[in-house]
C-alpha cells in the first residue's frame, strides 16, 4: 500500500527533474549565446557542451517516465496527453541543443549593429521556453495557473517573430554584406524563432489538455 504512495512521489520527482533539466538547458543556452556574441568562444563551447549533456539526460528521464506510466498503468485518462507533453517539451530541448551545436560548427558572424538585436531575440525565444516549462508544471500541479503562463508564451513567441523580422529586414536592406552571409545569418534567426514556435505549440496543447482535465 505505502509503496504505491512512494512510487507516485518518485515519479513526480522524475517529472520535476525532467522539467528542471529543460529549464537549465534554456538558461545555459542564453548564457552561452551571450559569450558567443561577446566573442568569448571558450566559455561558449563549455556551455554548448553542457547543453548537450542536459539534452541526453532529459531523453533518459523522459523514457523512464514514459515506461513507468505505461508499465504501472497510471493515468489511464491523461496518459496520452502527458506522453505528448513530455515528447513535445523534449523536442523543444532538442532544437535548443541542435541550435547551439550549429553555432559551434558554423560560427556565423553577426554585424555589430545586429548582435544586440540578436541577443534580444535569444532572450525572448528562451523566455518562451522558460514559460513553457512553467506551463507544463502548472498542468501537473495547478491548473488555474496554466492560463497565465500560456499567455506569456504567446507574448514571447509574437515578440520573437517581430524581432526576427526586424533583424531580417535590416539585414537584407544592407548593401555591404554578401548575400551568402545574409542567408547564413537568416538561418540562425529562423532557428531561434522555431524554438519559440515549438514552445508555443506545447503551450497550446497544455491549454487543450487543461480543458479536458477541468472535470
Amino acid at each position, binding site marked *: 500500500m505505502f509503496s*504505491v*504512495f512512494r512510487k*507516485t512521489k518518485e*515519479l*513526480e520527482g522524475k*517529472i520535476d527533474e525532467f522539467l528542471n533539466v529543460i529549464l537549465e538547458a534554456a538558461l545555459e543556452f542564453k548564457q552561452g549565446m551571450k559569450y558567443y556574441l561577446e566573442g568569448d568562444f571558450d566559455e561558449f563551447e563549455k556551455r554548448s557542451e553542457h547543453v548537450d549533456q542536459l539534452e541526453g539526460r532529459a531523453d533518459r528521464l523522459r523514457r523512464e517516465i514514459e515506461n513507468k506510466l505505461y508499465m504501472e*498503468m*497510471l*493515468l*489511464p*485518462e*491523461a496518459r496520452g496527453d*502527458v506522453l505528448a507533453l513530455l515528447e513535445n517539451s523534449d523536442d523543444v530541448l532538442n532544437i535548443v541543443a541542435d541550435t547551439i551545436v550549429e553555432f559551434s560548427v558554423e560560427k556565423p558572424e553577426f554585424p555589430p549593429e545586429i548582435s544586440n538585436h540578436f541577443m534580444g531575440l535569444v532572450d525572448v525565444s528562451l523566455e518562451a521556453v522558460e514559460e513553457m516549462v512553467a506551463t507544463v508544471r502548472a*498542468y*501537473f*500541479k*495547478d*491548473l*488555474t495557473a496554466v492560463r497565465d503562463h500560456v499567455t506569456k508564451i504567446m507574448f514571447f513567441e509574437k515578440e520573437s517573430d517581430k524581432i526576427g523580422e526586424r533583424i531580417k529586414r535590416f539585414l537584407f536592406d544592407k548593401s555591404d554584406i554578401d548575400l551568402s552571409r545574409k542567408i547564413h545569418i537568416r538561418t540562425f534567426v529562423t532557428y531561434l524563432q522555431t524554438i519559440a514556435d515549438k514552445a508555443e505549440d506545447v503551450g497550446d496543447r497544455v491549454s487543450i489538455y487543461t480543458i479536458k*482535465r477541468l*472535470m
Partner: protein
Amino acid sequence: MTWFYLASGLFLGWSLGANDAANVFGTAVGTKMVRFKVAAMVASIFVILGAVISGAGAAHTLGKLGSVNALGGSFTVALAAALTVSWMTKLGLPVSTTQAIVGAIVGWDFFSGALVDTDALTKIVSTWVISPVLTAIFSFLFFKLTRWSLRVIKMHLLEMDLNTRLALILIGAFGAYSLGANNIANVMGVFVTANPFPDVNILGILTLSGKQLLFLIGGIAIAVGIYSYSYRVMKTVGSDLFKLSPIAALIVVFSESIVLFIFASQKLEHLLIRLNLPTIPLVPVSSSQAVVGGVIGIAFARGGGRAINFRVLTRIFWGWIVTPLTAGVISFFALFFMQNVFQQKVYEPIPYVISEAVYEKLNSMDIRDPGLGVLKGKVFRNGRRFKKALKNLTKLSSREINEVIRIAEIDSLKIDSTVANEKLSPHWFTYAQLKAVKSLHGRIFAYKWQLQDALAALCEEWRFKEDTRRNRPYNRELEMKYEKLFEVFRISKMRERYDELHELMGF
C-alpha cells in the same frame, strides 16, 4: 423443490448483479482506473455484506406491498420481474429491477385478491421520483465542493490519479454495500413471507436468521451476476453512455450510494429520529435512475442544463410507467398459468370473517355500523371482496374499513414452546418476550390480533408504543417480531379449513 422455486429469484439477482454493479463500478472500470478483477471482488463482497446486514429495512416495506405467501407465487412473481428486466434490457430501454418487482407484486395482489397496501405503494412510487432528484442535488453540491477544494489544495496530477483510484474503490465498496442493502429486497423480498430457510448458527459464533440466509443466497446470486456478465455492461457505461472524468464519476457514485444507503439504513433512521429530523422511508430504489440523477446534477454544476439530454429523461419517465405495468401484466398471466396449467399453489387464500369475537373487538375499538351486523358470520374468500362488501354495506371511513379488514383477517396460529425454543432467537427476542410466548403453549388463535392481545396482556414488552415519530422504529421492530411469530406458529393448512377452525374457536 425449494431451490427450484428460488431459481427465479436467483435469476433476478443475477441480472441485478450483471446490470447494476455497473452503476457503482462502471466508470471506474470503463476508464481503466480500476481493474475489473478488483472491482468485481470488492463489489461482490460488499453487496453480500450489505444484503445480509442491512437488507431488512427496505425488504420490510416491499413485504407490506404484498406478502406473497406461497413459494410458487414468489417464484412466479420473481420470474415475471426477471423476464421484464431482461426483455426491456434487450429492447435497450432503461430498466430498473425495483420497478419490475413492484409491478409484479401488485400483479400478484390482483390475482390473489389480496389488498394493495396503497400507503406502501405511494411510498415506493414517490421515492422513484425523489431518489434521482436527491442524487442530482447531492452530486451538484459535491461537484462544486470538490472543484473548489481541488483548486485550493492544488494536488499533483499523479497524486490525484492515485487518490482517485483509491477513492473509486472505497466509495465503490460503500456503493456496493448500499446496493446490496437496498436492492436485495427486489431480489429476495417476495420470498420473505414464504421463506423456506430456518435460522442457522455458523460455528457457534454467528447466527443468521432465515431471512438473512435468504439474503445471503440472493447476495451470492448478485455476485455471480457481477463476475459473469457485468464486465460488458461496465465497458458500455464507462465509454458510451455518459462520458465522465474519473472524478466526476466518483462524485456520481458517491451521491448514488448515499441515496441508496439512506433509503435502506435503519441505523440512520434511528439517528434522524434521535436528532428530531424528518425520517426517510426505507424503500428499494433504482440505482440506474439514481445514477442518471447524479449525472444531471453534474451537468447543472458545470453550468446550465444545456448538456442534459431530455430524451433520456422522458425515457426514464416512461420507465416508471411501462416497467411496472409490463411486469404486473406478465405476473398476472404467469400466475394464472402456474395455478391452472402447472397446478401449483401460487398463494394461500386469506379468508375474512366477522365473527362474534371480531365484532366485539371492533365494538371495543369504537368501530360500529349496522352493516357490520349484516356481514356477521359471512365468510369472504379474499380481501378485495371483503373490502367491496364493507364499502357497499357500511358507512365506515376508509381508515375504519382498513381496521375492520385487519381485525377480520383469519389466520391460524398454534403456539408451541418447543418450536419457540428452536426458532425464536434469544438474541433478538427479549427474555420476557420469550417467556410470555411460551406461557401460551398449546393455545390456538384464529386472528393475529388475538395473539397480540394475549401477549400484550402478559408482558409489557409485547405492547406497541404510542404512534409517534420517536416510537416508530420500536414499533416496527415489534411488528417484525410479531411477523416472525406468525410465520413460526402458522398452521397453514388450517387456514384453508377455516370452517373447522370456527368450530374449534367455538362459533
